[in-house]
């Protein structure tokens, strides 16, 4: 088997062997999905329209933003990258293979949500299943590269929690996952333009569910693609083998460049 296959199989199995990973990849998102399906739909029947896209975004966000970067930082702090470096494992494999593996787990959780939400909770069914699948892949790409960047620029697990929560909590509250974006006050709508979950929800609603959106779906797609490519490039550029080492190719603050596509999108939707 090739190096990629061996490495990928190991990373994929880790998602099942490791209890913390299992929690973030399956138990938290599926538990939250069940809670939302049983409770939220009863309280607010209109939530049925959002259940599938919101829970897919939530599942991917939990695994990619909360779980994935912590693993990267812990591996660096534990000297694992040093072992990898002296054994010829390149940075791109160290970053991309775990991301693909976590992405696969994210796809499995998303599939469970998409297949069960209609029969279990009478959720709104996607009009275009292919669009649902393709946008899910794009959401995985956007969030995995963002999680990768958080892991690369964070100096410790504490820093990961800080950066992750800056995205995670506002995304749940303001990203159109719990409340449709159109119902959020305009000021907060502008702020939600900094959150990747906003664009993920708008793309799902526009293309897969063919519902009206606040942001044009093509803009949502463009922001996610640009964000993903930029985050990947910045992650590879800023990757550091060893937290105790003194050589780095750029300041971690360069990671803030990831905001560029989001700010441009806000400017475009405001003045364009």
């Amino acid at each position, binding site marked *: 088997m090739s190096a990629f296959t*061996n*490495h990928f199989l190991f990373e994929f199995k880790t998602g099942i062997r*490791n209890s913390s990973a299992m929690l973030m990849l399956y138990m938290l998102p599926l538990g939250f999905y069940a809670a939302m399906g049983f409770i939220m739909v009863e309280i607010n029947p209109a939530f049925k329209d959002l259940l599938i896209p919101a829970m897919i975004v939530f599942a991917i966000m939990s695994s990619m933003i909360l779980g994935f970067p912590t693993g990267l930082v812990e591996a660096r702090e534990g000297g*694992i990258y*040093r072992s990898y*470096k002296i*054994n010829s494992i390149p940075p791109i494999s160290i970053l991309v293979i775990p991301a693909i593996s976590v992405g696969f787990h994210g796809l499995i959780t998303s599939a469970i949500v998409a297949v069960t939400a209609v029969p279990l909770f009478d959720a709104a069914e996607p009009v275009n299943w292919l669009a649902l699948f393709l946008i899910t892949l794009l959401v995985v790409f956007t969030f995995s590269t963002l999680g990768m960047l958080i892991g690369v620029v964070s100096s410790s697990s504490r820093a990961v929690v800080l950066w992750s929560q800056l995205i995670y909590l506002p995304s749940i509250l303001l990203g159109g996952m719990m409340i449709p974006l159109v119902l959020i006050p305009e000021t907060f709508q502008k702020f939600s333009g900094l959150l990747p979950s906003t664009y993920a929800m708008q793309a799902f609603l526009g293309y897969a569910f063919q519902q009206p959106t606040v942001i044009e779906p093509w803009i949502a797609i463009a922001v996610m693609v640009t964000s993903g490519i930029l985050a990947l490039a910045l992650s590879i550029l800023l990757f550091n083998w060893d937290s105790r080492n003194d050589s780095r190719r750029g300041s971690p603050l360069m990671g803030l460049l990831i905001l560029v596509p989001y700010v441009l999108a806000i400017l475009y939707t405001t003045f364009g």
Partner: protein
Amino acid sequence: MEESVVTIKKFTKTYGDFVAVDDISFEVQNGEIFGLLGPNGAGKTTTLECLEGLRQPDSGEMQIKGVDPQREPRKLRDMIGVQLQTSGLPDNMTVEESLKIFSAYHGVPPRFELLSRMGLEEKRKTQYHQLSTGQQRRLSLALAVNHDPRVIILDEPTAGLDVSSRAELHSMMQELKSQGSTLILATHDMAEAEKLTDRVAIMLRGQIVATGSPRELTAKGSGMTKVSVSSENSILHDYENSFPAVTQKGINEEYSIYFSTDPGPTVSAILEHLATHNDNLIDLRVERPSLEERFLEITSNGGTA
């Protein structure tokens, strides 16, 4: 003429204002076990990590078989095997997976027979965090040699190991040497260095203060040989006069201890004295100065060899 496999010239490395390694030079010959000795903080690990390409030297030259670790890191990785002092594997990676993954990245098939030789055959499916420290060290050595490198760098390989694991690793190192590999061993265990190495360099505060074979280094010291004698009547305890070449005398329980610059005449005179006074010898030990004693001598002199 001996072939140099590793060449380090005028190498310096600083961390801020702290000079970790200060203008050192040495060479390692093909097929030898070279020891880098020194107390903690002497600069051994920094030197090795720059040689392995994990850190960047501030100045100086480094080459392994003509390859500069900074300029050709990829080429270097397949030539060297490294057991780091502080490193790890993912907790959930099994022994078998680690061997498969690392082999694949080196572009060689996994050598599973190494697991038997390292006593890890039964642990193939065991995850890294479930291995004992000794087993983790042995796995690390197996991974370091799996791609058959010609130069093997071991940083404190036996630290924290029990006696049997340590003996096992020592025998592995000697086996690797007999197969033609060159080994660089950083340690602060002098007995280990004396037993295994062909030549050593002693580092102190970032500088090399002595080089040579363990025998050469100990010979350059104060040269005191310790002679310990125990006899039935312990008459030596009360004997006031000295014996030839003895510079210092002491008593340790039933033993009279003499430090001699020339042990032959000393031992002859002691035996003659016992025979003359009808005292029977119970035990006689002659111990040449160890590398550890020589090391302590050098370090207590502030690095003056």
